[in-house]
């Protein structure tokens, strides 16, 4: 990192090594905040009124702090240098905070629900709002906590409140994921093309580039062509965006960490991915631009065609697990990576590849990015869009990538189960902490995110290494290759599962187990190889970029 | 272990099916020699392995366990669909017959597949520069799938489905050389002829389904029995069914059902008069002839009859016997004059199939099936031998151009000879070692059929009515004359009726020690499975059962004697023509040096020959006969017909068995009649064909023989007859119709028209022009105006149609509401 000189930051060149500075700031933030928070919490536990008061006014104080921060930002020049130093630690802190928030949030919700469950055993429910606990009852259950905590817990027993919070989380994911994925994609594209990608905004490898772009897009002029069908033109962007958000509603991140657990979640998500295309088609048509219409038509063709192999490939793990419920499908895959459905039998192994290819086509990613192929159709269906409308399409696209990758992970790659068989880490530690570590190693939403991020990386990787194919080739590949292939896989998988469940005991089970281990071995080898290559690349990263220099900005 | 056997049988269907698809999808890429190996391993190798496991296990399983396994397989059928009151189930029929047939099919097919790899490699089989090699093996694999499926089907529905599939495979394989001008018509002929038979089959199935209420074999048999006993369903007095304008009821309907089911067998097993397709089917590649048109598929008809044996009536059985008898005799005669080696074998096959059907017809259930299996071995071998000859001689099939090939292809020659001996019934009569006699498979099986036929013809009808028999068995209780057979240990329990006088005795004996007598005397596996509480009444049950069968046997008429003598005649003809074929092909001097010089044989093809020759010599009697004896339980409780065990070496449970007392042992009688027929046939044949064809052509010129020769050579003019009957017949009917049309209808018509014309001329001038025209024109103009009005709504505008229909519906609803309001509803 230090070998690159980023000229426009030289004015504020700080003293000391970068690492040490970052470490100090992160440590200070985490340590200070942690000590303060823990202290307050402990005093509140003891019933200290001041601490309770502090905890109570916490939100208000935060709001006030934000106002102060805004004022401070107005006085930009003064704090610029501080922000320049603190930006990266803030990023790291945000990531860590989000991670912990996800984890503890899930725990908290589970706890609240179990509380309600205990109470529900001997109480009749009353319907409006669905809550039934009285504050006094919660106090009885948690005698040592201050009133305000009781109040907070009381509030969270209402599903509506939990739903709203969860909705907020979904929006967070949808906003944060695309922002960082776009940055990440540009970095990866740069590396693949032997350049650096964004290097300036936010100082560390241009991490704030997308945020800056977003700000720019919000202030951009909102253009609507004269001949366009204006209502539809406006509507189209939302029609492309909203279904993807709805898909998140049914997508579980963890065993209890799902907005709505539906027994038709799979079909629902597939439907949402199918509906997304309506927005694209309308956008193409409403633009009154022939390139846009071409893009829309291509999207329609492609989507209608690839939904079929995609759906067929999604049915394979459903058959193998014997349920449509995503939660049950994941719990059928616990106990180590060789229990993941992708490694159960050869048909599922191939089915995973088929699904992944079809999912690329369904989110218009390269090599299937014909609807927006910029070299032929200017920008395809969103040629005429600008500003925030334009960015909605990209939010939708990246969120859709997340959804299809998440589905792949849930259905084929074990969901939120880690690759570690539980007995490997059984008894890692003593006591509650030990068990927590053990639990973290075995499963959890973080594993889910890790796997999804890996699949997202593969999507980006493919995009920048494969050329785009022609529309006839796209359809040929679907109708004459993918479709029969997935049908055969379906039949084969059915027979295999049938044999597994209803057929011979000894011999067949042995064969099935051997095949399972062989495929699991292939998967493990693939992952090890991938890590090895990544490590090799990281170790030789200087050779990768050569002697590139970041040129000074003209203005500086 | 229990469920595994049935599942292994079912599993044997998987790989042929997969192989079929693999070859269909990627056949051209797999390439020429490899596709064959894929077909061999996937199509037959795996099933053979599975089948061998089942067969060996079954062979060493005790009868009680077998019965349990059969019942378990029967009960573990899977419900596939419910169509109204009809449950479609599938499962596996697991009994001795299935196991034996399955193993036989797998074993023979495996070696024929093996042979085919060599046989088909030698061909230039390209059509439009594309090799058809893979296609052949794909068809073979599909055939394997269908045939094995047919064998293990527990219900007539699935049997029919696989039945049609094997028909399709046969069609595809006969027409394999579709670029030639002879193969496609042959394939069409086979297919269409089979459809004629299947039409009858469907009628039979329809009756089974309608009256017996199920297509499951066991269920149908049980329903048949119950309905007969209680005079309900099929035998209910008021049931009449009109078919083709006739009405049927009761026993006639049951006979019709049996005959209908047999019609299917007639088509598939090429029985007279549907035999015409089988000789033409030789247009297919020779391995196909060996596998499908000699060893397995054509035998499916016999298998079907065996399976529906319990549904037959005496009349239907007599019909079967007559058809079998006609086929076996007349087809054997044709074989004498055939010069094409494959055609000769084809007619021989027809004749032997006739034997089997005849055996079924006379009630020799085990014997017919045993003949099926022995015949499958040696006929497959003979065909493969002929295939080797044809391949070696570069597709010369005419025996007149062969001769002296033994030096060039010794293995083929001698294995072929083993086949000739087997089909000729080679055996040394009267010599036996314990129960094991000395001879080849064909000897035993044919001997057994003939023995039963003899008994039916000469020793039948000498036992009393069922009640009498029952009483006597209870009353006299004295041991009947010591039985030579080994089941004397438990024999006193049998309901021996009319002990002194009759030639047929009951063999309701146990197979094991005497304490099991009561148990196995209970007879059917179903009863055994019913539980131990019935054991106490087992003896009564057995006697009742036995006397019941006695009664059944007494109700069946004796066999006409000419049928027996026809079969005997054929036993002499068969060695004659088979020896002729062998001699003309392999012995003597080469008649065509061109052919002779090029003749060769290859390892790939002789290996199956040797294996099958050994199989013919060894396996069939020791392996299959006991198993078939056990299988006979499946036919034992037929309510209207009886199955007779011709040998009774193995105690076939509850079958009627021949009497082997010295004074009426039919086998002894047959020793004199046909025991040395093969020697005589060989001798006559050798005398005539010793020096090639000269003697034969001289005999052919003598007046009575020349006519006979022509008759046989033209196959009794059957093709011409069918041509005359159906093709010309249709044309003749058409011509008659045309004649009637021209000379009767037209005449009348013209006459009337002439008269009318005159009248019209008169009336037109006088009446019409003056009075009528005004009236008519008025009407037409009115109609025209009306049409102008009426066509208005026919605007072609669908929107208006929508409006009209919805508007009228609305009006109707509104009117309804108003009316109801007014009525206070």
């Amino acid at each position: 990192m230090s070998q690159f000189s980023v000229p426009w930051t030289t004015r504020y060149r700080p003293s000391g090594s970068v690492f040490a500075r970052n470490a100090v700031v992160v440590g200070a933030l985490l340590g200070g905040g942690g000590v303060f928070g823990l202290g307050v919490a402990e005093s509140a536990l003891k019933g200290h009124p001041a601490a309770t008061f502090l905890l109570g006014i916490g939100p208000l104080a935060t709001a006030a702090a934000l106002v102060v921060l805004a004022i401070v930002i107005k006085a930009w020049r003064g704090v610029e240098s501080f922000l320049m130093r603190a930006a990266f630690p803030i990023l790291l802190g945000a990531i860590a905070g989000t991670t912990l928030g996800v984890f503890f949030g899930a725990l908290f919700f589970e706890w609240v629900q179990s509380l309600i469950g205990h109470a529900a055993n001997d109480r009749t429910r009353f319907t409006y709002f669905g809550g039934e606990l009285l504050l006094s009852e919660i106090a009885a259950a948690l005698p040592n906590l201050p009133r305000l905590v009781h109040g907070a817990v009381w509030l969270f027993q209402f599903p509506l409140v939990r739903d709203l919070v969860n909705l907020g989380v979904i929006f967070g994911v949808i906003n944060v994921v695309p922002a960082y994925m776009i940055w990440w994609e540009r970095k990866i594209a740069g590396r693949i093309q032997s350049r650096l990608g964004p290097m300036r905004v936010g100082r560390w490898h241009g991490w704030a580039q997308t945020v800056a772009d977003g700000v720019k897009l919000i202030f951009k002029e909102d253009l609507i062509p004269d001949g366009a069908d204006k209502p539809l033109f406006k509507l189209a962007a939302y029609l492309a965006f909203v279904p993807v958000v709805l898909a998140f509603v049914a997508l579980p991140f963890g065993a209890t960490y799902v907005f709505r657990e539906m027994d038709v979640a799979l079909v629902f998500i597939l439907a949402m991915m199918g509906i997304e295309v309506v927005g694209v088609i309308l956008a193409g048509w409403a633009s009154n631009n022939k390139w846009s219409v071409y893009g829309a038509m291509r999207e329609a063709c492609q989507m209608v065609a690839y939904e079929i192999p995609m759906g067929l490939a999604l049915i394979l793990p459903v058959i193998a697990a014997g349920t449509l419920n995503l939660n049950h499908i994941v719990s059928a895959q616990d106990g180590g990576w060789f229990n993941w459905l992708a490694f159960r039998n050869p048909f599922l192994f191939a089915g995973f590849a088929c699904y992944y290819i079809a999912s690329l086509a369904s989110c218009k990613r390269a090599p299937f990015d014909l609807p927006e192929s910029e070299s032929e159709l200017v920008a395809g269906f969103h040629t005429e869009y600008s500003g925030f409308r334009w960015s909605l399409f990209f939010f939708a696209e990246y969120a859709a990538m997340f959804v299809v990758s998440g589905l792949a992970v849930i259905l084929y790659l074990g969901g939120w189960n880690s690759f570690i068989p539980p007995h490997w880490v059984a008894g890692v530690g003593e006591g509650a902490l030990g068990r927590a570590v053990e639990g973290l190693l075995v499963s959890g939403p973080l594993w889910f995110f890790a796997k999804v991020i890996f699949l997202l990386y593969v999507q980006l990787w493919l995009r920048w290494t494969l050329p785009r194919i022609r529309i006839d080739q796209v359809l040929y590949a679907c109708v004459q290759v993918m479709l029969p292939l997935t049908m055969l896989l379906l039949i084969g998988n059915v027979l295999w599962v049938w044999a597994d469940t209803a057929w011979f005991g000894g011999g067949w089970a042995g064969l099935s187990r051997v095949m399972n281990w062989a495929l699991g071995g292939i998967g493990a080898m693939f992952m090890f190889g991938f890590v090895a290559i990544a490590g090799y690349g990281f170790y030789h990263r200087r050779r990768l970029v050569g002697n590139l220099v970041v040129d000074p900005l003209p203005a500086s | 272990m229990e469920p595994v056997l049935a599942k292994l049988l079912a599993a044997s269907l998987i790989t042929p099916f997969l192989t079929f698809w693999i070859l269909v999808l990627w056949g051209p890429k797999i390439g020429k020699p490899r596709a064959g190996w894929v077909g061999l391993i996937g199509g037959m190798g795996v099933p053979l392995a599975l089948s061998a496991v089942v067969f060996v296990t079954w062979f060493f399983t005790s009868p009680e366990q077998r019965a349990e396994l059969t019942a378990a397989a029967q009960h573990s059928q899977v419900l596939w669909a419910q169509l109204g009151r009809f449950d479609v189930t599938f499962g596996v029929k697991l009994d001795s017959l299935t196991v034996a047939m399955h193993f036989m099919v797998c074993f023979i097919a495996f070696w024929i597949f093996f042979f085919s790899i060599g046989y088909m490699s030698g061909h230039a089989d390209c059509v439009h520069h594309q090799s058809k090699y893979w296609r052949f093996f794909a068809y073979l694999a599909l055939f394997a799938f269908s045939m094995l499926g047919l064998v293990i089907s527990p219900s007539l529905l699935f049997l029919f489905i696989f039945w049609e599939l094997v028909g399709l495979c046969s069609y595809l394989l006969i027409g394999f050389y579709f670029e030639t001008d002879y193969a496609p018509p042959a394939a069409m002929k086979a297919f269409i002829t089979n459809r004629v038979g299947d039409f009858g089959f469907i009628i039979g199935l329809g009756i089974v389904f309608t009256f017996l209420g199920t297509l499951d074999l066991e269920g149908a048999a049980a329903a048949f029995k119950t309905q007969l006993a209680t005079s309900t369903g099929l035998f209910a007095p008021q049931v009449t069914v009109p078919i083709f304008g006739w009405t049927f009821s009761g026993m006639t309907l049951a006979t019709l059902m049996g005959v209908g089911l047999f019609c299917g067998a007639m088509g598939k097993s090429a029985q007279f008069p549907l035999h015409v397709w089988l000789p033409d089917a030789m247009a297919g590649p020779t391995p196909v002839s060996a596998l499908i048109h000699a060893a397995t598929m054509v035998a499916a008809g016999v298998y079907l009859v065996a399976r529906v044996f319990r549904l037959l009536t005496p009349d239907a059985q007599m019909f079967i016997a007559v058809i079998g008898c006609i086929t076996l005799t007349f087809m054997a005669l044709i074989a004498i004059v055939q010069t094409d080696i494959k055609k000769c074998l084809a007619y021989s096959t027809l004749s032997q199939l006739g034997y089997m059907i005849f055996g079924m017809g006379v009630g020799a259930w085990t014997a017919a099936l045993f003949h099926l299996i022995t015949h499958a071995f040696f006929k497959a071998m003979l065909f493969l031998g002929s295939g080797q000859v044809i391949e070696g001689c570069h597709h010369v099939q005419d025996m007149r151009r062969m001769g002296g090939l033994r030096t060039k292809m010794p293995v083929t020659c001698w294995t072929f000879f083993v086949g000739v001996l087997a089909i000729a019934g080679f055996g040394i009569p009267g010599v036996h070692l314990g129960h094991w006699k000395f001879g080849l498979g064909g000897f035993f099986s044919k001997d057994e059929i003939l023995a039963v036929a003899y008994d039916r013809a000469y020793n039948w009808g000498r036992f009393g009515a069922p009640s009498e028999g029952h009483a006597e068995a209870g009353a006299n209780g004295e041991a009947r004359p010591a039985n030579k057979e080994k089941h004397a240990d438990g024999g006193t329990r049998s309901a021996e009726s009319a002990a002194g006088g009759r030639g047929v005795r009951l063999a309701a004996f146990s197979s094991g020690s005497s304490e099991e007598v009561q148990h196995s005397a209970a007879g059917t596996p179903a009863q055994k499975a019913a539980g131990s509480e019935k054991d106490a009444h087992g003896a009564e049950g057995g006697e009742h059962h036995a006397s019941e069968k006695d009664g059944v046997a007494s109700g069946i008429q004796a066999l006409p004697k000419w049928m027996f003598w026809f079969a005997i005649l054929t036993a002499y003809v068969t060695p004659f023509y088979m020896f002729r074929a062998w001699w003309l092909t392999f012995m003597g001097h080469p008649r065509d040096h061109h052919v002779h010089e090029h003749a060769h044989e290859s390892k790939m093809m002789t290996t199956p020959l040797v294996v099958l020759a050994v199989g013919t010599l060894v396996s069939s009697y020791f392996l299959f006969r006991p198993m078939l004896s056990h299988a006979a339980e499946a036919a034992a409780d037929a309510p209207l017909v009886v199955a007779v065990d011709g040998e009774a070496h193995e105690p076939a449970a509850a079958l009627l068995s021949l009497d082997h007392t010295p004074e009426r042992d039919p086998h002894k009688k047959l020793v004199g009649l046909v025991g040395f027929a093969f020697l005589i046939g060989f001798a006559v044949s050798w005398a005539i064909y010793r020096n090639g064809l000269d003697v034969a052509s001289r005999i052919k010129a003598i007046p009575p023989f020349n006519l006979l020769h022509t008759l046989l050579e033209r196959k009794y003019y059957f093709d011409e007859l069918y041509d005359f009957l159906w093709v010309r017949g249709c044309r003749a009917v058409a011509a008659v119709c045309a004649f009637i049309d021209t000379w009767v209808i037209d005449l009348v018509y013209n006459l009337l028209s002439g008269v009318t014309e005159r009248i019209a001329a008169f009336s037109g001038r006088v009446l019409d022009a003056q009075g009528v025209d005004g009236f008519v024109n008025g009407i037409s103009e009115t109609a025209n105006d009306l049409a102008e009005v009426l066509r208005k709504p026919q605007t072609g505008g669908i929107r208006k149609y929508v409006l009209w229909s919805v508007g009228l519906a609305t009006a109707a609803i509104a009117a309804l509401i108003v009316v109801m309001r007014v009525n206070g509803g």
Partner: protein
Amino acid sequence: MLTIGLTHYLIVSAVLFCAGVFTMATKRNAIGILIGVELVLNSANVNLVAFDRYRAGLMDGQIAALFVIVLAAAEAALAVAICMNFYKNLVTVDVDQGDVLRG
């Protein structure tokens, strides 16, 4: 009014039906008519599912609705194909032009 019953759904279904019929009757564009047909089919489906929920509860209504959806999909595919053929032959999608077989 607060408790939703069968009648509520049936009224919605009736409105949808009438709207569909109106669409069929007034649109001259072939695809527009198709859209009307889809509305009508959907109103029928609402009926089926609502009766199943409130009256039968044996999921026969739901299965019937499934079949209707399947048939509607088939109908739409075929109808669009017919529209395209219509367009190929008459170079318009105005159904009023398609009155070659009028009386």
